[in-house]
């Protein structure tokens, strides 16, 4: 079993979380604008 000391740097994971959130929000924004343009 892994212990509390088994820690690895997660900087890239955090950046990927923020990038994916930005993409999801961008997609939501684009969908709203495209279908709500009329």
């Amino acid at each position: 079993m892994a212990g509390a000391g088994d820690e690895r740097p997660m900087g890239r994971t955090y950046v990927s979380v923020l990038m994916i959130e930005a993409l999801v929000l961008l997609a939501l924004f684009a969908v709203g604008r495209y279908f709500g343009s009329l």
Partner: protein
Amino acid sequence: MHLIDWTIVVAYISWLVWDGVKRTKLERTTESYFLANRSLPWWAVGLSVMATQLSAITLVGTTGQGYSDGMRFIQFYYGLPLAMIILSLTLVPFFYRARVYTAYEYLERRFDPKTRALTSLLFLFSRGLSCSVIVAAPAVVLSVILGWNVTLTALAICVPAVVYTMLGGVQAVTWTDVKVMGLTIFVLFAAVVVLGQGLPPNVGMIDALHIAGTTGRLSAFDFRFTLEETYTFWSGMLGGLFLMLSYFGCDQSQVQRYLTARSVDEARSSLLMSAYWKIPLQALVLIVGVFSFLFYTFNQPPLLFNPVDDARVRGGQQATQYAALEKEFDSAFEARRRAADAFVAAHHGDDAAAERQAAEAFRRREAEAKAVRSRALALVKQVKGETSYTDVNYIFPTFITTAMPIGLVGLWIVAIITAATDSIAAELNSLATATVIDFYKRHYRPVASEEHYLRVSKVATGLWGVFACWIAVYASTLGSLIEVVNRFGSFFYGSILGVFALAILSRRASGTGAFVGLIAGMGAVAAVAFGRPEISFLWHNVVGAAVVFVVGSIVSAFVPQPPKEA
């Protein structure tokens, strides 16, 4: 409900209870009972975190919000990914390395016993009360829609949770959450398919999205900066950030989920699963609501979605007025349906001006239908003598019982019941942990055998379960008062976050400073909530956290932390 649906409901709930109960033999110590010996894989913990937050009212209430307001509710979650990153960097490694059972245990190590006792007590108080909402709200909806007895419905939700949580501990809670999340995602996708099939043959999915788009239901952004509006980009990003930091970082019902993970990294990964998936999942729930609107654009909906209130108005003194409204609504529905057909035809053509005109005409017809419904809702409000009234929680359950195919009805009913069951199970487990670790073991019986503490833990879970059942049955008769109780719990969130922020960010903060700051923070939130009720509750979290931090820092400067005894 068809016999097949009944069989699905009974079989699924029986399976959950049986699977939970058989985990009893895994429980030998309090660490295994409350923390699964810190041995669970990150993906199971991550699903458990998401399942605990996704309650039954998410499935019935949020789909209803999607129907009436579209996607705008999703802004509530925009601060969540950032909150998860902040927690992964700060509180998660603090809690994990400290080998604590409860988040509040850490506050005694950093400050003093009274700060720990007060925050733990606030948790017990607010979460104990929230049990009533978790169970009572869906129990009321299911009893109205299916004609079930409300007390028996509340007990059908509560009792299985009490049984498997008491016997199986956190292992039962987590693995049940995994099953429930799997079922929930399946029924949500199935609902989109069924709703899509309910559209006329000439209306494709893209056409349908264009119809929803013309009414603004696909707009997920409101960039206005206003304290009064609950769901805006800024309230979600700032108010939501503080709420999520407090809920996932300082609320034992969530902290306990990731303390069961195998390592700090797995605990972090379990939280980051929500960061990746919460917004898409919530979008899926809201899309189901938007498609319900599209379904009822082409298929006649009832004027009121709550059949009990419908019968009450129909049989009362306002019956004639209501009948006239119904007739008006039928005409408005027909006009809206024709306008939708005309819009689709224009959309398929090449004339952009005609398409714009058709969209404008549909918006007008939609506004007319909405106005008739608003008058019907006002009539119910008048008949019931209530200050506010909505039937938004009954929209999707009405679709389930009247338009879903046999089999899926059972799966949806079981998804709603078990969403409430697994949320309350996590609450019971964490309430028992705080009771035993923060009070019984800390103040009443510091030295005893593991068998004794395990027995006490099971008794505490059982007693909290009995309390939850009792208060849920009582709350199911409270009507809109349930929401008041729920809102009361949100008074504490920001303030508790402020205490943890003091603990981690300020080296000079003292126990007395944190204690006084906590009381000042709750007072400030109460003053804002009662003095300026128009300010959205999401901002209360920012106010509470900021006041605790500032007052706590000032008091700490005058009353420093005494040196720890060697």
